[in-house]
């Protein structure tokens, strides 16, 4: 009998008590981290704090950040493909798997149920939320950070917030207009009690962007970044130039001229040798390398990021194992191609319309250096977000808009000299013709870089689709046609009851 009680007491002791420690139910994740875990780790290693701001940059190229599993959902450059197609310079030249078809046919822009209308909205507001989270941690919008390092973080966060609002303002609003149109909800904090904001006016949105960027430029003064994926003073200046140009008052253009001049001083143009693959310069030419001196903002993709099929390179590059190669090629609009002078080296960036393969594809502008069709399986070719040439052209445009045609012509000539053999035709251009030429050169130079759409809008242009478009070939659309700007997606309309208040 004694043994029996001793044994059972032993069970009782071991089994009953085993689960009863107070912290038994407190478990920590390891697949991801949490604010608490990260805070604790940063106490030991303060360098970790930089990781939050770089998270915004990683978000720029991560698949799925637009809230879908679509293979067209991969952040910044994914949005660029949408806008390049909306302004028609990028043609979806064949349909196989069918990504982008609703954009290319202008179905997605007018249909609030489409994922394509949702993805940029979700992605860009995610960036804004990320930036706001950091701004909140730093002490809020109005706090002047105490140290230079904190100022840099604040400047980067506010630039990224302005970046988000600028792209939203372009994709979801037709134009600046009178400034009183209600276009977008504004959030300047991640505070969960301030959710579901109503739409603000264009003026309010622009005022916020200008204020954020102006302050960021000050905060980022003297900051030297270690890699080009980070925002620095020149990135902020570039964005501010676009923001102001999109509003387009004379005062704005004056400031644009100054801002672009600053950038031109800081960065050289892309060289003729870098512009186009000529059969031998595969490792040095092409827009695939972050080290290119003219690149202001971009990212060095490495194997560590595991970028694959779902990427800008996958969708556009024939030499990457993905959709462009597998039957959904992206090509230049035939009309735009035809408008490139025969003696313009940039004409060679594209396969000729009579080539046996890759017709009108940008195979000599964007390519994996190995140049094997469908070859690049894991994407390590780099992404360009912003380069100096944009501002050489915008500088010319600003001057033309300010009525300084001669200076504008000079700026344009300087830019085109390495590109076009005979630029004598420029001398005869002035006024609207000069602006048209700058607009055309902007479209040519920046094909596939997500910038032509902004140029179309600020030039209030009408585009005519070339004959190689699968849809609406030959039709014309004005910049403010409802088809050229996305409607606010259904998910917002359904789930933000304050939207129109």
């Amino acid at each position, binding site marked *: 009998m004694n043994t029996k009680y001793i044994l059972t007491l032993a*069970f009782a002791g071991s089994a009953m008590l085993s689960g009863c420690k107070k912290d038994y139910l407190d478990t920590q994740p390891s697949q991801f981290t949490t604010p608490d875990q990260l805070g604790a780790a940063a106490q030991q290693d303060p360098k970790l704090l930089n990781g939050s701001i770089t998270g915004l940059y990683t978000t720029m190229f991560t698949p799925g950040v637009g809230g879908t599993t679509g293979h067209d959902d991969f952040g910044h450059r994914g949005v660029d493909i949408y806008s390049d197609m909306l302004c028609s310079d990028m043609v979806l030249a064949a349909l196989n798997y069918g990504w982008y078809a609703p954009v290319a046919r202008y179905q997605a822009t007018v249909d609030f149920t489409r994922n394509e209308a949702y993805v940029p909205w979700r992605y860009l507001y995610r960036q804004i*939320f990320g930036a706001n989270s950091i701004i909140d941690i730093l002490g809020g919008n109005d706090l002047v950070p105490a140290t230079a390092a904190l100022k840099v973080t604040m400047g980067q966060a506010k630039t990224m917030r302005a970046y988000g609002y600028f792209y939203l303002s372009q994709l979801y609003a037709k134009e600046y207009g009178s400034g009183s149109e209600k276009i977008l909800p504004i*959030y300047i904090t991640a505070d969960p009690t301030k959710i579901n904001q109503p739409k603000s006016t264009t003026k309010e949105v622009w005022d916020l962007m200008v204020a954020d960027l102006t302050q960021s430029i000050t905060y980022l003064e003297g900051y030297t970044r270690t890699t080009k994926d980070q925002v620095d003073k020149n990135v902020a200046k570039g964005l501010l130039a676009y923001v102001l140009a999109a509003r387009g008052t004379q005062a704005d253009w004056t400031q644009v001229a100054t801002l672009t001049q600053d950038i031109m001083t800081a960065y050289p143009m892309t060289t003729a040798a870098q512009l186009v693959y000529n059969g031998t310069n595969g490792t040095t030419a092409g827009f695939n390398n972050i080290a290119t001196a003219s690149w202001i903002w971009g990212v060095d993709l*490495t*194997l560590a*990021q595991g970028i694959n099929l779902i990427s800008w390179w996958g969708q556009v590059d024939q030499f990457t194992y993905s959709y462009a190669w*597998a*039957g959904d090629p992206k090509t230049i609009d035939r009309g735009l191609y035809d408008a490139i002078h025969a003696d313009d080296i940039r004409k060679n960036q594209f396969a000729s319309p009579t080539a046996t393969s890759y017709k009108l594809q940008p195979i000599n502008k964007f390519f994996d250096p190995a140049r094997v069709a469908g070859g690049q399986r*894991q994407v390590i070719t780099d992404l360009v977000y912003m380069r100096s040439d944009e501002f050489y052209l915008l500088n010319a445009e600003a001057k033309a808009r300010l009525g300084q045609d001669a200076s504008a012509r000079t700026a344009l000539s300087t830019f085109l000299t390495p590109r076009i053999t005979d630029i004598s035709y420029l001398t005869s251009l002035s006024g609207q013709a000069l602006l048209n030429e700058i607009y055309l050169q902007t479209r040519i130079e920046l094909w596939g870089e997500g910038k032509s759409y902004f140029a179309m809008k600020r030039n209030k242009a009408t585009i005519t689709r070339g004959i190689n478009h699968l849809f609406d070939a030959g039709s014309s659309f004005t910049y403010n046609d409802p088809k050229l700007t996305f409607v606010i997606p259904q998910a917002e309309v359904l789930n933000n009851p304050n939207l129109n208040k």
Partner: protein
Amino acid sequence: MLLLAISLSISHLWAQQRTITGKVTDDKGEPVVNASVVVKGTSVGTITKSDGTYSLSVSENAKILVFSSVNMEPQEVNIGSEGSINTTLKFKNSSLEEVVVVGYSVSTKEAFTGSAKAVKGDALNSKNVSNVSKALAGEVAGVSVINTSGQPGSSATVRIRGLGSVNGNRAPLYVVDGIPYSGNISSINTEDIASVTVLKDAAATSIYGSRGANGVIVITSRSGKGNKSFIEVDGKYGINMASIPRYSILTSPEEYIGLSWEALYNEGVKVGNSNPTNYANTRLFSANGISPNNNIWNAATGAELIDPVTRTVKPGVTRKYDPERWEDYAFESSNRIEANLKMGGGDAKTNYYSSFGYLKDVGYSINTDFERLSARLSLNHEVKPWLASSFSFNYANTETNNNGQGSSSNSVFWFVDNIPSIYPLFLRDASGNKVADPIFGGYQYDYGSTGRKFGSLTNAIADANYNTSLSKRNELTGNASLTAKFTKDLSWENRFGVQYYNAAGYTRNNKFYGSAAGQNGSISQSKNELTNLNFLSMLRYAHRFTSHNIEVLAAHEATKFKEIISSASGYNLVDNYSLELANAIVKNPTSNSYTNTNRLESYFAQFNYDYTGTYYLSGTVRRDGSSRFLGDNQWGTFGSVGLGWVITKMGFMKNIEFIDYLKLKASYGTIGDQVGGGSYYPALTSISIGNLNNLPSFGIPVPNFPDLTWEKSKMFQVGADFRLGTFLTGTVEYYLKNTDNLIFQRRVGPSNGYALLTVNDGQLRNQGIEFDLTGHILKGKSYYLDLGINGEHFKNKITTMPIDPSTSKQKAIDVQAPYGWAVGHSIFDFYIRNFAGVDPADGTSTWTVYYDDANGNKVYNAGEEVLDLEAFYSSNPDKKGALFTSTTKDYTKATQYYIGKSAIPDVRGAFNLSGGFKGLELNVQLLYSFGGYSYDYLYAGLMANGLIGGNNWSTDIRKRWQKPGDITDVPRLSNNADVNVASTSSRFITKANYLALNNIRLGYNLPSSLLQKVPGIQQASLWVSGDNLWLHSERQGFNPATDEAGETNTYRYSPLSTVTVGLKLKF
């Protein structure tokens, strides 16, 4: 002592002996052999002889004789003065007496106050499926078994009593031998299962507290208890095939190309081309049509190929070659082999059961199979009269090949159903000859690199042949317990359970063809290691007073779940076949590992009471703490009460002859679900960890709701178990289950930076009635015929939507295409644009539009449309009933609204027919579902109007609009010039009624006369069995039983059909 012995002997001497004789028969008049005849209260007795007669010498003062026999109701007879007593014994209603394993104790169907349906292992094993989840189909009313894949070894999705949550978990809890189970259901050999009990109501499930809300499936393994030593051997051989027909699709390349031409012609008309015939002729084989490389005819242009009047291929045009039918190379009949060896036995103190099983189940789709080697040992031993130990151990080694099943161009099923019949499987040279493959032999597959407009640059069949998609698993489930008995009534059980598995998944893409050819082949591995430990300590007191019976238990349980997940990959292979990373010259720097943990701590108690076997009462309370939640939200309390009343034991029922048995029962309780948060840490804000320039990069926080906790269900049930005469037994139950604090993904405007927050809000109601009836149509000495029908009718309704904090009001509508969630609607009510037919004038689609007639002209004008009816009514309540309807040809202007159809059926269940004649047994099981609607996505894809060459069509495309005046509901083909033809709309909502022959089995038990000639063999049976042989549904190929809402999916591996022969011998 001496005195006592003397007095006993005296009493013996005083008693006078007399002899009683008689005969015991059953209710058919047949003699009962070996029935026991005992004087009540003594050990004096005898057994009946082969003719049922007995002779017993009893003392004068003996008052009562008790007659009893196996499977028969005992009978007590007063001993009168007569010397002969004959009696009739009735067969027991075995289902009432049978022991049912419920939660942490055992009961009988009669004594249990909740809803528990036990299914015997034999019923499960008559089906040839590799795991118990699929075998449950049709066995239990209110249990819906959704067979989502034909992949051998895959598990079914099981739903018990409606749809328990909106965004949360709807899956039941599995419990194996008393321990909640986190392992793989497919690692349990169904031959080792003694029984499965499905617990449905709160009285039955509340003992599982936070995990019981969606029902519990209790699996009990076989043991050697009560057996003489035995050896059981069985072998099964079967054929797996795809015998349920697939969708009816176009198979003639000529028909396909004719329709393609017609589509171009209509496009020409639509774009205003002056010569549509020429438009089609010149485009048919061009960049704007089908690639000239895919022209299989000896005709260079559309003009040469197509007769513009008949729009078909001109007579006399020949082919360069005949493209293969892809299905012929994708699917083939295959084998299923299973063998089991079981041994067991025991005596009063010790019993054991051991088994070895082998299963190789090869699917009909190429390179898909499941192989399992399993072993089991269970040992129970009474160490001391006061101490019992039990130990069981299950090991399974499984290997699954599941090629060709991605939701991508890697899918064999997508290719088979959708590729236009003009495209060959094998590559052709310029003259149409197949091209030899120098690497693998045979012919090279066509990867579509020359302009194939379907799945270009891939070939799923080649991939399934040349690549590897394999998972291997070693899985161990162990269970040890010690039970100490303090007294006859009081015991203390301590149990330790472990589930462990180590699983490795391998993906290999070959060096030479397909996606990794550019990398010279690639491999990736993922490894999962699970350790789930469970500790239980339980005190149990049970005592029978004269007419009161009490059982009380109290317990503490702790669960520790830990899964380690790691992955690594590489490319540039040395050997084309080796799956190890050493074989990859380049390793990717994306390798990763992490751990998921989950802990649960519980205290619970239960009380069961009955009075004279007539009134039953049970009560349960359980308090659970879960690591999924934070702080005060970790702990929740659940409980239930149940009542049972066996009315037929009441005196007043004695006169009602036809009711043999009637029990009423009722229960109420609360149960929870904690899994629904979606992750192991659903209350924590998560921040992803990334790499940018080899420095840390933390993702944008994904906010979570820190106050998250369980969703809680309150379930009420009433039911009756009854037996009418010898003809009908049955159970009818009604339940009402309100779930509140729903784990709901509350949507916010995505402009907030996040799209949803997982919160506790909203309420959902499920209510239903379930019936399980068995009619004993024929019953004789050598034959019987039973017909069973079970089924359920249920309603599912959202009664409260989550509050939108920015308005403090409930959300009007949460559109979850093709469904919409709103108060008063089920989670599967279609909220969709209504297809209003085809305009006979031009063959284009029309959709219904609700419009607010602003200008009062009674005509729909652009801008007057209402896009989202519920949201509109919510903000314009005065407009209810004031809107008009019309039709529009612009899909984006059509109204989304509740069209009055739901994916929830009116009734579903099964018919079970079982009959026997002498040694022959026949069982037939039919599954049925009536009254619901489902979205047929696969069919929508086959009825689309995409670019020609891009997809095959259903044969229903023959009904398309062709010329003005055609009345049809299939719009014209126009090479995608008409948009949204196949976009989500009511057009593809299909009646989901079905009737399926799930299992038919004919068995033969060899008669004992024959067996006696073979010494040693106690029992021998052989059978032939067919599974999933026939399906009737609204449309050929449409199988709504493969999805919770009946939706179809072009990537789905349709369940396979199996015909098996088997032999079982017992020594």
